[in-house]
């Protein structure tokens, strides 16, 4: 399935060159494309260069495939269904989400709007295809720790980039929504500002998000949280990567309405939470994630006052 999704990102002739690497879909993390540069793939944390026959090696060889501007344009046209205008907002934000929830980051010449904000992008010459890996059961270890007598605690997941925050959050949402041995299923509202959690493609989540989950895709967090609260009456709201005083205010409003919050933020130490303008006392559980021997692990779970309940 994932192999088909990866190959589906490329037009016919170019697709053939990705056949070998697509077979390693489970280990494949990124495909990095630069117009005029060698095609690189990141597989199991190692970088490889693709050659013109689709084979890959860890060194730049003579047969290395240097992506032309034309090929870059073909790939972009294909992922945009030959309708770049339809992806104006997404390209303006710097990424596109494709079936399977995979994200294609793009960079090129930025087009500014009259208000000085980034409106669109032209001459796209850089692409970073991040392969989404849904890990069912990733939150199994965390689930009992964030429940207290059948009640879900407001939880903050803290981790540096690439340590599985979003993967953990996604599985938490699924389990909370579907219900688990720790608590019955709840109405979950997800504000997926960058389409990373649910990986929505044309409004439909590409990842399993649970039967009671409602997703607000591509919506700014602060607005999205309030919109969900007013319109969908969720019992739990989940957001990714909070880190501003405005986020704090929105979360406080949600908590005052009796809704639970599950959020993630960048960081690796408890003091970083306050430094980013987030009040740790808003949460009842703070889970720190990290990497051990290259594998994402749950390092510890604390109460806001610092009492360790795991790790």
């Amino acid at each position, binding site marked *: 399935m994932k192999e088909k999704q990866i190959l*589906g990102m490329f037009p016919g002739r170019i697709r053939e060159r990705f056949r070998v690497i697509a077979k390693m879909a489970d280990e494949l993390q990124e495909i990095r494309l630069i117009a005029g540069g060698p095609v690189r793939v990141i597989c199991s944390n190692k970088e490889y260069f693709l050659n013109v026959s689709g084979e890959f090696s860890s060194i730049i060889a003579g047969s290395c495939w240097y992506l032309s501007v034309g090929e870059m344009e073909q790939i972009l046209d294909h992922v945009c269904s030959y309708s770049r205008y339809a992806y*104006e907002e997404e390209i303006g934000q710097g990424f596109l989400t494709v079936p399977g929830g995979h994200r294609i980051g793009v960079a090129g010449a930025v087009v500014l709007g009259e208000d000085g904000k980034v409106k669109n992008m032209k001459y796209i010459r850089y692409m970073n295809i991040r392969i989404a890996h849904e890990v069912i059961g990733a939150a199994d270890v965390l689930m009992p720790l964030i429940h207290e007598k059948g009640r879900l605690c407001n939880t903050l997941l803290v981790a540096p980039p690439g340590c599985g925050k979003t993967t953990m959050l996604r599985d938490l949402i699924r389990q909370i929504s579907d219900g688990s041995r720790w608590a019955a299923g709840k109405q979950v509202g997800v504000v997926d500002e960058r389409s990373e959690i649910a990986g929505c493609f044309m409004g439909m989540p590409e990842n399993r998000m649970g039967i009671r989950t409602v997703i607000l895709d591509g919506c700014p967090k602060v607005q999205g949280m309030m919109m969900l609260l007013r319109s969908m009456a969720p019992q739990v709201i989940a957001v990714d990567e909070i880190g501003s005083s405005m986020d704090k205010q929105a979360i406080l409003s949600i908590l005052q309405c009796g809704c639970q919050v599950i959020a993630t933020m960048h960081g690796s130490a408890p003091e970083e939470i306050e430094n980013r303008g987030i009040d740790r006392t808003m949460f009842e559980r703070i889970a720190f994630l990290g990497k051990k021997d290259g594998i994402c692990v749950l390092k510890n779970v604390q109460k806001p006052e610092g009492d360790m309940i795991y790790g």
Partner: protein
Amino acid sequence: MVKLFGVCFLITGAVGFSFCLCREQKIRLMMLKEMRSIFFLVQKQIHYGGFPIDLILQEVSGKVKTPFSEALKRVSEQMCLEDGEEFCRIWTREMETVLFRIPITKEQKELMLGFPRLLNAIDREGQAQMLCDYIDELDKWIVQTEKEEKDKNKLIMSLGTAAGILLSILLL
């Protein structure tokens, strides 16, 4: 009696032939109007909906007449097949089979076949505007063909009838 019957047959034949020629003009005009309505609908869908072209073509296929309706549906279906074939190739292949059968000029056929090259704007407004220019071009042709149709039809019918009468006199 036989001669009279022959004269009638000859004149009717000549008028019928002229009618066929006029009908071709009519079909040309109808096809141009159909092409215009395709681009008009696509332009509206882009402008107000901003949907990708495969979805737009599927929608438009239900609103235009045959043979374009079937061709647009096939294009949309093939785009959804996910076999990686480029839109330009699919469009050219499907449209060529349709355009081969309809009496429009080479220039008009090229305009239709060149549609995929037009889809390169980075924003909705720009894309819709580019299609407006396309529609304007078709409008010019429609006006021109309508004018030609009226003039030519009169001429063809008159010449056809006259030729029929002349032939009858000569043969008598």
